[in-house]
């Protein structure tokens, strides 16, 4: 039997150490470009989180979900309601985050149950509708009873805090100054590593293989005795719970939530991350999420200087150019790497066979 520590050669140990050091140092490196970069890195990790969650549904089980942001919204609102002056509740994070996962899980099943029979594009439009339904309810549940405070959103949300150690403001730990965003980075890092571990374990478990069977051929999967209904619901629930946790962190980090953060385009972006990176392949999905979060922000910094260098003046409006380049990048990557930037070896093989 092969276990992970059998594969530890000096080279991989060196590589792992290097990665660990790099991950630990990243917020300080990014801070050289300003704390804004730390924030961007944090959002990148948050999206890695989301993309991995969606990857379970889309990549592993092959169910096209265009309403994934709904779970993120559920998690964010749950945090906002349980840790803000809105209801006067201030529960600690170790209560809310698991609760967020559970509630999102429940919503996942709620979405999954009526859509079990649907496939492909029909499923896509129904999940899309579900995402919109959740957003619209959040936008409107300020009357007759004020639950979500409607479009005004919820302000003054508590940050993550352990005792008096708040994650929102900077402090000095062991003589090193750590800013608020940098603290969140480490929190997110721990969480995302856990999520990656869960994902890897899942993929190679019985469940993961059952999902793969459903993805490849549902009828055959049923025939060999897989309970496709339960497996599909499980995929929705697992994916949703990750979204719920990510949403909670988002609310705490921002200190403010309002329904406009959870629009359809966000679902589409997360799906784009999964597909662009390489569906079903965990490293690929991570890459996709990082690229799509960092790219538009990097373009924000790059568009004006590049134009100035090339033409000596700012010809095109940086903002429209930024999104234009982003759209083109999506098209071009898919054009030349249809299975994503970093597809799993199986996928690559399948594609090669098809091309023949």
């Amino acid at each position: 039997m092969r276990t992970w520590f059998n594969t530890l050669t000096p080279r991989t140990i060196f590589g792992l150490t290097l990665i660990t050091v790099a991950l630990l140092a990243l917020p300080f490196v990014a801070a050289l470009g300003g704390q804004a970069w730390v924030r961007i890195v944090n959002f990148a990790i948050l999206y890695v989180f989301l993309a991995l969650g969606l990857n379970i549904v889309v990549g592993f089980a092959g169910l096209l979900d265009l309403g994934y942001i709904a779970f993120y919204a559920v998690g964010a609102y749950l945090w906002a309601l349980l840790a803000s002056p809105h209801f006067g509740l201030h529960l600690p994070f170790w209560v809310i985050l698991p609760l967020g996962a559970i509630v999102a899980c429940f919503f996942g099943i709620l979405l999954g149950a009526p859509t079990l029979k649907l496939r492909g594009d029909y499923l896509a439009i129904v999940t899309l509708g579900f995402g919109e339904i959740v957003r619209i309810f959040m936008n409107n549940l300020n009357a007759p009873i004020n639950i979500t405070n409607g479009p005004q959103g919820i302000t003054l949300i508590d940050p993550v805090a352990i005792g008096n150690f708040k994650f929102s403001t900077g402090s000095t730990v062991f003589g090193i100054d750590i800013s608020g965003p940098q603290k969140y980075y480490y929190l997110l890092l721990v969480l995302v590593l856990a999520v990656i571990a869960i994902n890897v374990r899942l993929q190679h478990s019985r469940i993961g293989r059952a999902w793969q069977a459903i993805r490849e051929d549902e009828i055959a999967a049923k025939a060999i005795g897989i309970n496709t209904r339960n497996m599909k619901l499980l995929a929705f629930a697992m994916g949703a719970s990750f979204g719920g946790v990510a949403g909670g962190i988002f609310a705490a980090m921002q200190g403010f939530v309002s329904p406009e953060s959870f629009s359809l385009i966000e679902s589409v972006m997360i799906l784009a991350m999964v597909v662009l990176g390489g569906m079903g392949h965990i490293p690929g999905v991570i890459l996709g999420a990082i690229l799509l979060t960092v790219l538009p922000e990097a373009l924000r910094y790059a568009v004006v200087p590049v134009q100035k260098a090339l033409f000596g003046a700012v010809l095109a409006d940086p903002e429209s150019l930024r999104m234009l380049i982003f759209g083109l990048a999506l098209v071009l990557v898919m054009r030349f790497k249809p299975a994503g930037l970093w597809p799993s070896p199986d996928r690559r093989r399948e594609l090669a066979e098809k091309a023949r």
Partner: protein
Amino acid sequence: MDIFLQQVINGLVQGAIYAMVALGYTMVYGIMGLINFAHGEVVMIGTLVTITVVTFLLKAGFPVWLAGGMGIVAAASVCMVLGWSLERVAYRPLRGAPRLTPLITAIGMSIVLQNLAMMIWGRNYMTFPSLIEKTQFEIGGAAFTNVQVLIVLVAGLSMGGLLLLVYRTKLGMAMRATAQNPGVAGLMGVNANRVISSAFVIGSVLGALAGVMVGVYYEIAHYQMGFMLGLKAFTAAVLGGIGNLAGAMAGGILLGLIEALGAGYIGDLTGGFLGSHYQDIFAFVVLIFVLMFRPSGLFGEKTGDRA
């Protein structure tokens, strides 16, 4: 009663617009099983091109009918080229790729087109020059205009024309053959690439036409107008059974009616709890219910195991 009639008219016209856009989605989907997510953007470009051409010609002193006609022709031509190149650039190279890949390129193209339109036409809302003098009619206390009648007529005619095309012409036969099995159709001498290109071109012309109708009706245009419209139309297409022309039409009209009647009556029925702020939800709820019982939409054929 007059109010109910009015709501039906409102829904019918809105539905006719959805239907026209939905026909474009369904045309492409029926043949190659692909959601052309950028179709809403084609509609938007159609409207904006018409505005530019018509405003220019009117300023140059052309009579309204000529300016309007040339505007429509210009919009149709631009959209034809656009649809054709969309297929060539974004979709054709991806045939045989994983199913979601073309969806992402479509989203990418949609972003590109929106931002291009913003750079060309600016960020402001634009007014559509009034091509048709609006005249009011009244039936049973419900008001409607000639423009509304025109829209319903154009939508009906478009569907009729498409049905004729698909079931009565050689091209249509080739289309149906390609839809069934591109490989075998190829063996029978059908040039699948040509057929698919023509489906895109026809879909885009319909999009342009829909764009003009939207412009004439609402007299307003904006570079982001295509997104929501496309989404609603796509919902309509799925509701009717995507890939089915009559289904798209029925789905569109049904969606329009659900929205109008939902906004008009559900609020009072639920004591104000589910008012018109849930207008966008009604359509989705109906959609989910329909799909629970008929997983391929109202008129869709059982697709078997194509997912």
